[in-house]
């Protein structure tokens, strides 16, 4: 009897590291948005694959994720079960909001997915190609109104980078901020603005239906026959990526264990099928390569936000 109990205890103790921690994932955004969907997809994949027995998602919305970030960094310090979803938008928001808590205050684990922005015009627009848009922009920057997400977000940053790349003063970009890609879509469809710029997913079905004409993708790869910005002669490459990070002050062993769990999840069949249905591009990158990439992104974003005039 005692032996049996001991065996159960031992096997139980051994099962604990194998059947890793219960995770809590913070989505620093309201339910329904991109980060929330990412967090809930990670939750689904981690549990479906048996990597974690119990995963909770919490929402802390606000200010481009910086409210959630600040709360995460202070309250979950040293907690190896706490994860937070973040992304490129957070990099910009930290800078424009002068957030006291930055990505240096948490432990980035891995970049998971990415989405390319697309530049579109209404089907009846006089602009046929990126060349036409560049010519109009050079002639009178103010006459090109760009509809996209909030000021200082990835859409705004790309518009600024495009202007800079073709030799137009980025502060002259006439950027009209909408509270999301959906509202921007309505403004483009209604012919209220010259061009729209937002995530490919926001405009995809309208492009397929021929209501919008896609001029260029911001990412590295062309998609559905839409050329990349570099292919059209505008030297800009930006992907709107999303990542997962852990709490500050965790040990190297804990970080390695979390990274292993996330890597296992990112390679799982469940995760692949989620990416398929959501239309997300796998951009998995972890370890030193991710840290280097992150630093480069932060540096280039700081430069462009200064150029646009949003950060002093």
């Amino acid at each position: 009897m005692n032996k049996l109990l001991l065996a159960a205890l031992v096997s139980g103790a051994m099962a604990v590291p194998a059947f890793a921690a219960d995770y809590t994932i913070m989505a620093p955004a309201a339910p329904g948005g991109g980060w929330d969907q990412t967090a809930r997809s990670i939750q689904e994949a981690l549990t479906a694959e048996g990597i974690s027995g119990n995963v909770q998602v919490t929402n802390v919305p606000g200010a481009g994720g910086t409210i959630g970030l600040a709360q995460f960094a202070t309250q979950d310090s040293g907690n190896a079960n706490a994860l937070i979803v973040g992304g490129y938008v957070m990099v910009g928001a930290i800078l424009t909001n002068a957030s006291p808590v930055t990505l240096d205050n948490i432990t980035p684990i891995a970049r998971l997915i990415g989405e390319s922005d697309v530049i579109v015009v209404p089907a009846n627009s006089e602009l046929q190609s990126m060349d036409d848009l560049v010519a109009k922009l050079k002639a009178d920057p103010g006459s090109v109104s760009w509809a996209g997400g909030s000021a200082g977000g990835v859409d705004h940053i790309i518009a600024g980078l495009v202007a800079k790349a073709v030799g137009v003063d980025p502060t002259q970009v006439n950027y009209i901020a909408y509270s999301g890609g959906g509202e921007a879509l309505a403004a483009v469809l209604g012919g209220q603005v010259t061009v729209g710029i937002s995530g490919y997913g926001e405009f995809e079905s309208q492009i397929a239906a021929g209501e919008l004409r896609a001029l260029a993708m911001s990412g590295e790869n062309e998609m559905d026959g839409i050329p990349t910005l570099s292919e059209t002669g505008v030297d800009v490459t930006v992907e709107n990526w999303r990542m997962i990070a852990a709490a500050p002050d965790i040990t190297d062993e804990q970080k390695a264990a979390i990274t292993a769990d996330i890597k296992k999840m990112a390679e799982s069949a469940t995760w692949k099928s989620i990416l398929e249905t959501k239309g997300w591009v796998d951009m998995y990158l972890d370890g030193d390569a991710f840290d280097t990439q992150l630093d480069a992104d932060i540096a280039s974003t700081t430069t462009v936000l200064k150029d646009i005039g949003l950060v002093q």
Partner: protein
Amino acid sequence: MDTFGLLAAGFAAALQWQNLIYAFIGVTLGTAVGVLPGIGPALTVALLLPVTYRLDPAGSLIMFAGIYYGGMYGGSTTSILLNTPGESASIVTALEGNKMARKGRGGPALATAAIGSFVAGLIATLAMAFVAPWLVRIAISFGPADYFALMVLAFVTVSAAFGDSALRGVTALFIGLGLGVIGIDLQTGQARLAFGIPDLLDGIEVTTLAVALFAIGETLVVAAARGSLDDEVVAVKGSVWMTLEDWKRSWPAWLRGTLIGFPIGAMPAGGAEIGTFFSYAAERRLTKHPEEFGNGAIEGVAGPEAANNASAAGTLMPLLTLGLPTTATAAIMLAGFQQFGLQPGPLLFTNNAPLVWALIASLLVANFMLLVLNLPLIGLWVRLLTVPKPWLYAGILLFATLGTLGANGAMSGNLFGIRFSFELMMLLGFGILGFVLRRFGYPIAPVVIGLILGPLSEQQLRRALAISQGDPLVLIQSPLAISLYVIAAAAVLIPLWFRLRGKGEVFSQLAADED
């Protein structure tokens, strides 16, 4: 197949017995979660969405529709009974609904809300099925200048509808407008009036302000007034059901509310609650019982509730035909659709016709199910009011606090090393503001309306001016905008004209209005 054939096929799918059970479960879950304070329809749907994943697409959509309608109805129940609106769209319902409940007419208030929601949902869902592609074209032709004109109309009609004194109404409105400026400016990304407090960067949450002013403010007033706690509360006076008179007064309000709410919901710039404001203003102007407004007029519940439900169906139009989520709830629904590989957008009706029509049929079935489930429960709900007053108000305080913490429980405040919930401190602070406003006879609703309409109108004005590169003439160039301004001018001038014609007594009335 023509539209009717497709709809019939949709019903055939929705009415299978297991799907009816899913609708029943959805409505029950939605109502149960929706009555919890601080949990609006968006969060209800987000929390319960995973429940639907295990089902086949048709069953899942049906349960989903049930959750959606259930969540919305649950929200109005707490607004009416406890004066704690869980979302901005039920703020107006609380105005007259809670007054009715206090007078023992909670039963008819809940009934007119439920039946009005059903009627509006029925008409709006059918209308959506038939006119969606056409109406959406008109809705997206609304430019920033037109939206701004619509906001001007809203300001003019709505501020005239609240309170008896124009000066006090406008003062309250400006408090709301001032609060609306707080937070990160969308167009420039710069923080305004946030004083370095991160919690203020996203502005002030409308529901926090509304619950504070309505529920906390009133609790303080009751607590401060000697003897008011001893008043006898009458839970049911007369019938718990609607009388013939109630029906006569409700049905035109339902129809008007539907007519107002549906097109506003279809507009892709958000602000679905604006329909409820317009509806309230219209009912107040058209009523034969003006003396009852502010004291529990049934039209003031019937119209806005119908407008709310009609605009909810309206928001499905840009979602289904353009893939355009205009509310938080719609954004979560979009995520739900994608689960089944449905891509809302212009091709949805052609590519996935059976599923879309099954969804439309399920909305109608869920709507009906909600009515059947909830009407018998009304008698039970109003019992809540027989709770002795000190307990009732303690309960209201508890629910308001829990709701605020539930919506945003971040312990982000920090004073001398003590961590506290900043949102809760705002709730209490605004509660005191609500007490002061009530104490000195200022109306509460314009504060909340200012907070909602202020930022919307500011963004549209600045977008219009940015697109025109600073030319103010853009504001009066579209025929739509001009018509809206003409209606707004008429709304101000016609009552003045009637007053001036009436001479003597009307002048004294005017003077009394000015306080």
